[in-house]
Structures are given as C-alpha cells and as structure tokens.
C-alpha cells in the first residue's frame, strides 16, 4: 500500500510537469487554433535561461526565475511574430510543420550554446523531504504539484473572468469577427504566446531538479505532454492538467507494476484507446461543420 501511494505521488508530480507543458499547448490552441510542436523546446530553453541566470550569473533563485520567465515571454512573442503570424489562417498542417522546424532549430542552437551536458539548478527545495507517517515526499516534487495547481487556477480565472481572456476565446472562435468587434487580434495572439512561453519556463525551472536540463529534454517531455493534452481534450485548461496527471500516474504505475518496456508505451496505448472511444478527449467539445 505504501509503495502504491509513493508511486502515486511521484506519478502525480511527473504528471504535473506534463500538465504544465500541456497547458502551454492548450493556451496557444485555445487562442489561435495552432498546435505548437515546439512547446517542449520552449520549456527546455526556459530551463537553460534560468540555469544561465541562477547557475552561471549567481542570481538569487527567485530573481533568476522571474528573469527567465520574463525573457522567455519576450522570446515567445518573437517566435510568434517571426514564425507563426505569417501563416495564421493557412491549413493546420503547415503550422504544425513550421513549429516542428522551430523546435529543431531551438534544440540544435541551445545544444550549440550550452553544450550537450546535463545541467542542474540549485533550488531552495532540492534537499528537504516531508514525512507523513512512513510516507516520504521530496520537496521538489511537492513544489511542482503546488505550482501546477496555482498556475492552473490563475490561468482558468484569467481565461474565464477577464476581458483579455474573453477576447482570446473570441479570437479563437472567429478571428475575423473578433477583429470587427474591436479586439486587437494580433496583439492578443502575441500575448498568448508570451503566456505560454512563460508557463513553459515555469515547467522547465521546476523540472530542473527532477530530470535535469539538457537540449533534448523538450523533445522527450513534449511528446509525453501531447497525450496529456489530447486526453484532457485539446482546449480545456483543467483538462490539460488532469490529462497530464493521468499520464504521469499511468506511466509511474506501469513502470512499477508491469514488465520493463511498458512504462514508455503505456501512455500512448491509453491515448489510442481514448481516441478510439472518445476522440474529443475527457473535457473537449465536439464540433462538426454545418452545411
């Protein structure tokens, strides 16, 4: 039983990281209907930024964290301006390819700049553990879980309660009509990219003590975050986190109870099953074109 709870908690912590990356996908998808295959690489880049500020320049952890988030938000806007804006409105396939290309580029360039070693960021909560009875919970895992809950709640409120959030949902539905209604669609899109890059950076920095930062981390985790986003139904913020947690728990349970090899494929098998039975995901909306 104790093993089970231990696995459950570490699965939830891992799942929260997937959920954070999936949140980035969902934000961009909600506002612009673009699926950003470079989301994992944005996370990786955010981790490297934080490493540069904290590990190399010796800034305080929180200052470095904030600086990395700000820098990545700017970078997200830049990426949107250069790569995505010219092809908004074209078939989804072209946009997917463009973001795959962007991911390739980011991965190689950060490999060129920071090398291919694993990096570690010293955090205030790398060491401590919380003991509840005989259950041992590491602080770094708890930090990931609590940060995910906070970010998810903030973003949910932002999207549903603020004017800007409503503008974002409107421009996702129909960019042209939103533009006629006086919504500055271009600015909205670039703000969404900034937010999603910032969320990715949070994921990267929180992840650093658990999996370390290296130039391929984005690819590996990004591909796990996809099932998470799909499971939750692309386009639902709580769905992304729930999907991420499910994927994380499934992965860690499969790694513990099933034979070797199941750990890596279990999320994808579940994903295929979900797509077969409920293609719109757990929280998604099913839309069909009217003729």
């Amino acid at each position, binding site marked *: 039983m104790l093993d089970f709870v231990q696995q459950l908690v570490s699965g939830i912590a891992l799942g929260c990281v997937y959920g954070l990356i999936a949140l980035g996908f969902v934000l961009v998808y909600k506002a612009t209907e673009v699926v950003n295959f470079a989301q994992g690489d944005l996370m990786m880049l955010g981790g490297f930024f934080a490493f540069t500020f904290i590990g190399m320049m010796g800034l305080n952890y929180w200052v470095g964290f904030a600086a990395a988030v700000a820098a990545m938000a700017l970078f997200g806007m830049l990426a949107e301006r250069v790569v995505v804006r010219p092809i908004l409105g074209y078939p989804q396939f072209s946009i*997917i390819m463009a973001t795959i290309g962007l991911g*390739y580029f980011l991965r190689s360039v950060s490999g060129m700049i920071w090398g291919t070693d694993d990096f570690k960021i010293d955090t205030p909560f790398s060491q401590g553990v919380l003991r509840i009875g005989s259950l041992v919970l590491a602080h770094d895992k708890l930090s990931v879980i609590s940060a995910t809950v906070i970010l998810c709640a903030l973003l949910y409120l932002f999207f549903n309660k603020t004017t800007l959030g409503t503008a974002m949902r409107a421009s996702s539905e129909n960019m042209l009509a939103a533009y006629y209604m006086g919504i500055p669609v271009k600015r909205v899109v670039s703000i969404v990219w900034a937010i999603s890059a910032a969320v990715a950076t949070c994921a990267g920095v929180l992840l650093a003590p658990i999996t370390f930062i290296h130039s391929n981390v984005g690819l590996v985790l990004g591909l796990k975050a996809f099932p998470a986003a799909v499971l939750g139904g692309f386009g639902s913020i709580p769905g992304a986190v729930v999907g991420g947690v499910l994927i994380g728990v499934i992965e860690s349970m499969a790694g513990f109870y099933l034979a070797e090899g199941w750990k890596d*494929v279990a999320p994808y098998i579940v994903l295929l099953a979900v797509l*077969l039975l409920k293609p719109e995901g757990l929280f998604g909306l099913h839309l069909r*074109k009217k003729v």
Partner: protein
Amino acid sequence: MRFLFKTDYEDDIRLFPHSGYVVSYGVLLAALLIAPYVLSSYLMSQLVFVCIYATVGVALLILTGFTGQASLGHAAFLAIGAYTAAYLQKYNVPFPVYFLAAGALTGLIGAMVGFPALRLQGIYLVIATISFAFIVEEILARWESVTNGNEGMRVKALSLLGVAVSRDSPTFYFLCLAVLVLTIVGTLNLLRSPTGRAFVAIRDSETAARSMGVNVALYKVKSFAISAAITGFAGVLFAHKLSFISPEMFTLQLSIEFIIVILIGGTFSLHGAVLGAIFIVMIDPFLTYLKDDMPGIIAGIAATFGAGTQSAANVHSKVAAFASLNGLKGAIYGIIIVLFVLFEPLGLYGRWLKIKLFFQLFPLYKRATFKRQKIYVKSERNR
C-alpha cells in the same frame, strides 16, 4: 505557349498529355539508366537512397497530399517492411515472396491503423500516428525472439533468380528504380480512377464527399492501406541497402524526414516526392562539402577585400570552428523547414511551375495566381 484542346475524357486522363512529356521523361529515364556507368559509387549510393525516399514520399503523398490525412508514423511502416524482410530472409524465403509479403503485411497493419483514424482528424490524427509509431518502435526493441531487440538484425544481400545482388551493384539500383517507377505510374493511374477521385474529394471536404455518396470510412482505410503497403516495399529495399537494421533507426526523426520530403517537394503533385527526396538525401553531402570548403572560400574573399594574411587566417579558423559546431545541421534543417513553410508553401515543384508560368505568360505573369486563401473562421477549418 501550348494550348491543349481536349475533346474527350480520355484526353483528360492521359498519362502523357502531349509529345513534350514523352521526350522529357524519355530523356530522364535514359539518363537514369546510364547513370551507374557514369557516376561515382558514392553518388550511386545516394541515388539509391533517393529512390527509396521518393517511394516513401509517393506513399505519403497518397495519404497526406491526396487524401488529406496527415501521418507522422511512416517510419513505423518502413520498419515493419524492413523487419518482415529480415525475418523471412532468415528462413530462406526467396526475395519476390518476402518482398510481396512485407508489402501485404504492412498494408494490413496500415488498414488497422486506418480504422481508429476514421474518427480522428487534424492534430488528433497526427498524435495518433505518432503514438502508433512509438508503440511499434517499442515492440521492435522488446520482441527479441523475432527482432533480436536492440542488437538489431543483419540483412544478407538479396538473391534474385539465384544470383546474389550486392547492395552497391547497378542491379540493386535498377531494382530500386523499377520499384519507384512502378509506384509512380501505379499511383498516377490510381489517381485517375474512381478511388483516387474519392481520395481527393475527401481531402477537399469530407462533408461534401459524404453527401456525394463517397464512403468516407472505406476510402480512408484504403488510403492508409495503400500508403502503408508502398512504404513496406520501400522498407524491404531500405533494409537491403543498409544491410543492418535496429529499432533506433526508425524513430520519429525519420517520420519527420519523410514529411519534410513531401513538404519541400510540394504536396500537390508526385513530382514533389522525387524533388523532395533528392533534396533530403543530397543535403547531407552538401553540408559536409560546405563544412570542408567554406572556411577557405570565406578567407579567400576576406583576403581579396584587403585583409592581411594574419586576419585572413584568423577568419579561416573562426569559420572552421563555427562550421564544425555540433548541431549546426539540426539548426539548418529547422531553418529550411520554417523558410519553406513561410515562403514556398507549394515546395520546389511549385517554384518550378511558377518559373515556367512566368516565362509562358511573360510579361503578364501575376503573383496572385498562386496565392492561397487564408481562413480565419474556426467552423470553416473544422471540416
């Protein structure tokens, strides 16, 4: 400019619309037939890879370009073809038999992938095919009694009519070329048949196709099966060309490369598959060439612009250091993909058509001829 006057449906579906086609393709075929006796063995080897990649490109075009179903899992189909060949070869099955068996098995699995894909579209389909490819990759690594696991499998030289054909021989090249040409001709005919028309109808609008009486589910599965089967054939050749296969060769990276093939070539015509394959296969030697020669060239330019010997040598070493940086190739790949999507969405073949039309209509060419429409309404995208 030539005007084709069509009086009959037969005129419309002819493989060679006019004599110009016969001449140009005849010359191309002749050049390809004498190539092994002219080109160096390295270039021949690259040409074999072009044939294999182009075959996969054609397969992917049937599915993605003409049926509109994106797939990032074609490396898995290639792997299934390659492993079928390697496994059957161990039991001394003759080449023609395992060649066909690989195609049949891959086609069957393709159809099985097609069934879940019926309910999916767009991004969901892409993710489902990625998942399928991951599962196949893991099975290849774990099912050790058949696939030999991560140690990989050796593939012996193929024997045709009792004669061993080495992977570097002209005969092997001709075999690959024959498979490519047969695939292209077969696909061209397929696209002129009711099946091909149904594929294109599904791509353009699934709802409209359904209301015209096209059995969308059936044709989607057919498209998956045909595309997978052709990829399986290519997989057999791929295995023989490499003579060693292991699971880590058939990763997502390879699937992305196949998508790049059709993206760079152009997704609306079979020419695209061949042009894209040439591009993808030749970019490696080209980058190696640049890496070796660029420092010298740039230092030479610096010297002619009055830089001293010292600073020219300085420039030389700096450029050389930059060119040998790890990961430069990946960055260039990324930039190429983004540039093509942004500025040349119709690919290399689209560029060729634009240049051709420019000269045909000179001086009346209009840029807007090739402009694509942007759609900003979700319900329109949601077809």
